[in-house]
């Protein structure tokens, strides 16, 4: 059963109660991430997220870890380009303990100086791990090429030099400016006592200040650029994409369906054509990256050097032709795939917590699975064709290739992408 209440300071608390599970998952979502940073403080949202586990007025970092473990709980956090999320998942009987821990780290963290210095080293290790993993790094390179050196183009982890310049003062100020009531949503899913949840949160998160400086907002241009990054690797990693639609767009369901038909699942066009029929790649898939005001429709493929051009050529052709060739059968299949994915995702308290939080952040309301499936079902083949034509049209593709390739390999093929 879904429910939404406002805490005393106006923070929305959205919850979904299920009596058939024994766990409860509570998440605090703050609308701040790497896109709200700039080149001079890139990485600060993620750095802050780490610092919330380094000790509070009541607990040392070790005590936080021990207490969480003693509950058998999963206490963790993650940062994306738009949000920073802190969550705890525990058995239902430990709800008040779990809330105690989660709200303490969220509100009572002290950011000890020596911990800040140590964390700089740890995050440097995390950044280097990504640098050593080509299939991860290619996505960062691609985003930077598509969105430029600001907003959506900034990586979540940031860069080591900038991070080394962070001070306790800069972290505290950043927290003050972003972690305000108007920027927060709390979500809870699983088996829990409503009264306990609301009263506990009102005594804690319900007292977070609500002064919020207006967020600078600017719309970002999609750059259909070719970006070749040479590196002596065994294989090449390709990211290709077009501007997609935003998370709040009325056309988002058409986008999901088009993406499913193109590159989600073993029966999708790209998987069948590029991998199954021609055996050109060991991996290929398409994805939707949606933001509140923008979107990226991307394709990732991994292949060897000699097949890079073929893979790009065939993929671009598949996309250019999709509006003329998509069939009713493919549309029905895609609708059923979305239906299946949505239903299976309801089983996990983590994914349900995430789903209701994102809906609150993006739409300020909740859509039931039945409503969502209704929107999906309402898309007709003509709608989809029209949408695909508009989205793809003659728009330029963005391309990033990372691997044993050089720019001159692509000179003759630029026209494919235009």
């Amino acid at each position, binding site marked *: 059963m879904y429910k939404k209440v406002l805490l005393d300071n106006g923070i929305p608390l959205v919850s979904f109660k*299920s009596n*058939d599970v*024994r*766990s409860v998952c509570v998440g605090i979502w703050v609308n701040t991430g790497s896109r709200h940073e700039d080149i001079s403080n890139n990485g600060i949202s993620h750095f802050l997220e780490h610092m919330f586990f380094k000790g509070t007025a009541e607990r040392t*970092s*070790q005590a*936080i*870890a*021990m207490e*969480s*473990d*003693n*509950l*058998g*709980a*999963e206490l963790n956090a993650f940062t994306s380009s738009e949000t920073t999320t802190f969550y705890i998942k525990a*058995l239902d009987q430990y709800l008040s303990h779990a809330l105690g821990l989660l709200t303490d780290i969220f509100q009572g963290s002290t950011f000890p100086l020596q911990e800040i210095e*140590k*964390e*700089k*080293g*740890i*995050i*440097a*290790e995390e950044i*280097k*791990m990504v*640098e*050593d*993993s080509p299939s991860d790094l290619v996505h960062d390179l691609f985003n930077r090429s598509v969105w430029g050196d600001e907003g959506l183009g900034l990586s979540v982890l940031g860069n080591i030099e900038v991070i080394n310049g962070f001070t306790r003062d800069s972290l505290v100020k950043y927290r003050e400016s972003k972690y305000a009531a108007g920027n927060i949503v709390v979500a809870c899913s699983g088996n829990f006592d409503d009264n306990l949840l609301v009263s506990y949160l009102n005594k804690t998160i319900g007292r977070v200040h609500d002064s919020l400086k207006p967020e600078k907002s600017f719309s970002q241009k999609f750059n259909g650029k070719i970006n070749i990054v040479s590196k*002596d690797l*065994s*294989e090449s990693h390709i990211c290709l994409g077009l501007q997609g639609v935003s998370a709040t767009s009325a056309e988002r369901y058409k986008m999901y369906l088009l993406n499913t038909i193109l590159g989600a*699942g*073993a*029966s999708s066009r790209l998987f069948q054509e590029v*991998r*199954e029929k021609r*055996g050109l*790649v*060991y*991996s290929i898939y398409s994805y939707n990256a949606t933001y509140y005001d923008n979107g990226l429709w991307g394709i990732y493929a*991994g*292949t*060897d050097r000699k097949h890079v051009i073929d893979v790009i050529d065939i993929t671009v052709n598949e996309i250019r032709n999709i509006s003329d060739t998509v069939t009713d*059968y493919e549309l*029905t*299949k895609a609708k*059923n*795939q*979305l*239906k*299946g*994915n949505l*239903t*299976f995702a*309801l*089983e*996990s*308290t983590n994914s349900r917590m995430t789903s209701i939080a994102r809906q609150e952040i993006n739409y300020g309301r909740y859509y039931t699975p039945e409503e969502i499936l209704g929107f999906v079902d309402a898309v007709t083949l003509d709608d989809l064709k029209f949408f695909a034509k508009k989205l793809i049209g003659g728009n330029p593709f963005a391309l990033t290739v990372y691997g044993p390739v050089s720019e001159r390999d692509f000179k003759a093929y630029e026209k494919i992408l235009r």
Partner: protein
Amino acid sequence: MRINRPNKTKNVSRCPQLIAASVFFVLCFSLFTGAYALEAKRSLLENGMTLMVVEKHNLPVVKVVVGIKAGSIYEPEGKSGVANLAASLLTEGTFKRTARQISSEIEFVGGSVGASAGEDYITVSLSVLKKDVELGFDILSDIILNPSFPEDELKKKAEIIKADIISSEDDPSYVAQREFNKAVFGEHPYGRLLSGTVETIEKISRDDLVGFHSGYYTAGNAIMSVVGDLSSQEAEELIKKYFSNWRAGSVTTVSAQKIPVQKKRNTVTVDKDLTQATISLGHLGVSREDPDYYSLTVMNYILGGGGFASRLMDNIREDKGLVYDVHSYFNPRKYGGSFEVSLQTKNESANKAIEEVLEEIRKIRSERVSDAELTGAQLFLTGSFPMKIETSSRIANFLIAVEFYRLGADYIDKYPTYINSVTKEDVLRVAKKYLDPDNYTIIVVANQKEAGIREEYSK
């Protein structure tokens, strides 16, 4: 790339007799009761397959997992990769359906089928909405019982797997893991790559796949779990309809292949242009069926299994700031296992990190852990246990493991007792018995010039 020679297997029937087709429940009892209200009905079918059914009616979904003793340990000499290829080709064509028909038919109803190989057993999985369960079982039985292993699909799949192997060479964790298993298990099949190598894959023919399938993909080698919005009677009827023709075969056993015990230090370095050193340090561990498994679970949790509360994380990440992540784990299989500490650190910090890992291993072997550490580990392991088996998919996979590793019908009820009965003395005893800070293998994938691994670690 070195190729490990597989060991011989025996008692594998190549001409199993067909057993009367009807599915008949000869055993039927409730598997789990009590604390977590997960009621599984376990039955042994006449054709030898074990069936576990858990009814879960909160959502209209059904998850089926079939575990079959056809993992890489059964691969014939020189054919490393055949188990993985056989499993991954199940969805690439049957005598009734092409690869495309299989994926289209199941995805048309929003479901999925897939197969993946392990060392001890392979699993074939089905996820489907309740209303399409009939079609789901039809496809599931078709791919398990009647795969045709088409030549062209074999060729394509082999190319894709080879490309994947080559691409993985750029992933330092993959390289470290491969070298670790090779060094620790030597010639034993657990030391081989599940995927096979580029060389062995090229030697695998369609006949090899057909032979492997007919020898091992038998009902007597199979455990099926059905979890979701289906009554046990509905599940039984579906199985009768779609799996009654599965021949029993004879149950696969593996000869007691000795895993060579290493009694010296062994350092393997792989030089790569990387900013970080990826390090794996460890040695042989235990089988999942070892009675010390639970004491080891508690001990390892305190040492390096327990995330931020573990000693390795506290020392090497939180105190020294050398790594983003460090973990230790026992990886138990049916016939043995490994113990491994893995971490990534700056090339220049590699020696320091190794030194700290060895120091922590020495420490846990020489002093009792504290009351708080023991209680913390026990509370976490017992408290998080029910959350690990909340979704249909997790329950279905869990049931296969419970049956395969003979963990017992009352495993869920007993797990807290197994963990809570571990004492500080047990932790010390198993640390002394199973951890070895002198005779170990270290794999270092790094820029070796910058890492400059000290000689003392290899002598």
